[in-house]
């Protein structure tokens, strides 16, 4: 930036104020922030992008179809079947790639739905602060008094396991936590004068929610989105592993672990066979670690909500 000077060469504060400040573009700003990111955050982002890439281009990357059956069950690792085949003769490598799309897709959809429900109800409760707030808060208290995996198991036994039911059930159960957080952070914003002003102007509930409050509570919500995603992702993986989540023949990492778990007993003869069920489990773990790293850095960056120094 050139220094503000007067015609005779001295400094002038008045000139500095009137000078047009060269604004950084969004990309420049983003790059400046990213440059300060610690290596763990970089690692996390890299892993997330890799996963997204695989998920988007699954049909192009996978050598075989996800439900394509070959006449060789439990084939060892080879050039044709990079990670061997499973009990039905399906290519594990291809299923791993399709699994990225199915597992991550369902987890993202569930998290979005949870934020839509929990976020909007939380904002409404925080703004209105009347009987609606009371009813919703007590209802959430009760839902949170039951461990969510147990609750999910109970609901799945009533409605049956399908991908749609799974998304709805987990989203509703997770919305309770989103509701609590949204309500808590929104309560601090609702009492601000500009919200009062908007109410006096006669703005509607939705306008106040979207234009006055939401922009001011974004950082904690974004961080929570990452953490919720991890939680939802792990819950769905656990349910699929139990055989109650995503149903076959859709490829999914949780059920792949279960299907190939029997191979572990062959570890002393062929270590690669024993590793086959571990790879989808490791894929789940790696993504969760990556998201956690990024969220940690993001929280640090925006507010330092955590006590880490």
């Amino acid at each position, binding site marked *: 930036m050139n220094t503000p000077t007067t015609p005779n060469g001295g400094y002038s504060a008045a000139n500095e104020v009137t000078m047009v400040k060269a604004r950084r573009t969004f990309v420049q700003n983003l790059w400046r922030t990213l440059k300060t990111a610690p290596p763990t955050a970089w690692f996390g982002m890299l892993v997330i992008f890799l996963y997204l890439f695989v998920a988007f281009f699954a049909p192009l990357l996978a050598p075989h179809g996800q439900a394509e059956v070959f006449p060789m069950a439990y084939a060892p690792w080879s050039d044709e079947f990079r990670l061997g085949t499973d009990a039905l003769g399906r290519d594990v490598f291809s299923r791993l790639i399709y699994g990225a799309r199915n597992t991550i897709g369902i987890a993202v959809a569930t998290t979005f739905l949870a934020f839509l429900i929990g976020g909007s109800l939380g904002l409404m409760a925080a703004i209105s602060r009347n009987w609606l707030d009371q009813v919703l808060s007590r209802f959430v*208290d*009760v839902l949170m*008094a*039951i*461990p*969510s*995996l*147990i*609750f999910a*198991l*109970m*609901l*799945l*036994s*009533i*409605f*049956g*396991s399908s991908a749609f039911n799974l998304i709805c059930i987990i989203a509703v159960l997770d919305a309770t936590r989103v509701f609590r957080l949204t309500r808590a952070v929104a309560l601090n914003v609702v009492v601000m004068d500009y919200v009062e002003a908007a109410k006096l102007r006669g703005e509607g509930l939705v306008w106040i929610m979207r234009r006055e409050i939401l922009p001011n509570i974004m950082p904690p919500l974004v961080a929570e989105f990452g953490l919720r995603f*991890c939680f939802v992702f*792990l819950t769905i*993986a*656990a349910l699929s*592993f*139990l*055989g*109650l989540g995503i149903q076959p023949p859709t490829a999914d990492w*949780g059920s792949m*672990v279960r299907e190939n*778990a029997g191979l*572990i*007993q*062959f*570890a*002393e003869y062929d270590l690669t066979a*024993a590793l086959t*069920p*571990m790879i989808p*489990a*490791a894929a*789940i*773990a790696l993504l*969760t*670690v990556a998201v*956690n790293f990024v969220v940690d850095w993001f929280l640090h960056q925006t507010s330092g909500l955590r*006590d880490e*120094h």
Partner: protein
Amino acid sequence: MHPILTTVIQRLGLGLLTLFVVSIIIFSSLEFLPGDFGQAVLGQAALPETVEAFRRELGLDKPPIERYINWVGNVISGDLGTSFSGRNSSGVDRSRDVWELIQPRLANTIFLASMTALIAVPLALALGITAALYRNSIYDRVVNSVTLTTISFPEFFVAYILILVFSTYFKVFPSLANISDATPFLEKIYRSSLPALALTLVIVAHMMRMTRAAIINLLASPYIEMAQLKGTSKAKVILHHALPNAWAPIVNVIAFNLAYLVVGVVVVEVVFVYPGLGQLMVDAVSSRDIPVVQGCALIFAGTYILLNLFADVISIITNPRLLHPR
């Protein structure tokens, strides 16, 4: 009345209320079943009369409130109804009592959970407190990053790694935790060691991080700084000033994680084919055996609520500010 007593009674009342609402939710899971579930349970060939008799046995011809009161009465006297499996279309009823199914498995799960708690709680507290006292040292960083990684792992991943390493590669422990009532006690411990270890790893990570955060939070409070500034010895600061205020957070951490154990036990039991309550519930969910699911859910949810209630009461009782009201 002493303010502590009022608070405790309030909290207990709230806990009972929660338990009541939760029981309504679990009870009403039977209401939400699709209308033709009698057919689904008894098979396609079931006569309309058999289905009708089955519905009558479940009491579906009576109003819901009457049924709820009956159900609660039965549950309190230990009668959880009879299982859906074992019934067939001809009306022959070989179904078993739910409590009979649950009871031996509940004992096994309690055994596994208490074994895990005995290892995990002291370990996690020791790790958490030392990490907080020597924070930002290499020790703290190593413990921290290891536990952060363990938290991100799904339970079954941890369990399978343990099986791969300790059971198939080095044959130290059996991979299947096949225990029964007849198994001698030491043998039981030996066979349950891998599931207990898997649960310990998962739970220690959570508990250690929460303990560390609670202690750091505590050590940052003004009265600790005051004590340090007036030259009190380090041991006295910790024992006299920090510890009385630390009970509440520590008990909370322990209860929270024991409650977490309730959930973790489901997945780990399935991995090791451990004959516990979690496995029973998963089997019942996949065969949609609602009375068994209800029974298991009631036990899990009840334990969870009671543990949290217990933690709350302890933290109220040990709170120095409430003990000496102005």
